[in-house]
């Protein structure tokens, strides 16, 4: 099955800083998703981004499918951005059921 690797594993920021989270995947994919798990455990779907760039407020994501990576940008971070960010790619070719990376744990200090 596909391997999904995320970096960095941990990240600590001061409020207002920008950051980039990376997701590498071992095979070509037809979809890629980013999720945020808040400190209370709730998992929220942030982006479905098989290729190209999308923006949602202070967050944006870019997937370069040919080079097998995706980036999540967080600008002007806020304490509410804290939590774990997961990327997920399909389990196998043609599947839409995601395999999750191990996540990037983000702490934003006030």
């Amino acid at each position, binding site marked *: 099955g596909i391997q999904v690797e995320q970096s960095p594993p941990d990240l600590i920021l001061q409020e207002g800083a920008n950051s980039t989270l990376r997701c590498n995947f071992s095979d070509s994919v037809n*979809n890629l*998703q980013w*999720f945020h*798990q808040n400190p209370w*455990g*709730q*998992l*929220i*779907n942030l982006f*479905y981004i098989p290729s190209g760039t999308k923006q949602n407020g202070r967050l944006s994501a870019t997937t370069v499918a040919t080079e097998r990576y995706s980036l999540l940008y967080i600008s002007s971070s806020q304490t509410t951005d804290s939590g*774990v960010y*997961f990327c997920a790619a*399909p*389990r196998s070719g043609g599947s*839409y*059921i*995601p*395999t*999750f990376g*191990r*996540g990037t*744990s983000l702490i934003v200090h006030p």
Partner: protein
Amino acid sequence: DTAVSQTPKYLVTQMGNDKSIKCEQNLGHDTMYWYKQDSKKFLKIMFSYNNKELIINETVPNRFSPKSPDKAHLNLHINSLELGDSAVYFCASSPVGPYGYTFGSGTRLTVV
């Protein structure tokens, strides 16, 4: 209106007991899933049902049995609970395809 709801939110039980976790979605999605999240936050799929039919059954002990009475419900029954079953279990649903993948709020299971 909660889109994917799981009950209970917390479950503390003794080794050897049998317990169930319920999941319901009101999104009209065709596919439902159970994920297990371990203490290191790793999310691993356990089961997936599409329109009440099992389509994925990962390497999960047969003490775990999913049941889908209709496409809006996917329950998880666990027999003979073991200490290693302690984890957070998430239910999720999606329409056909990768869009709108929605998780429930999780059930924290602690086996003592």
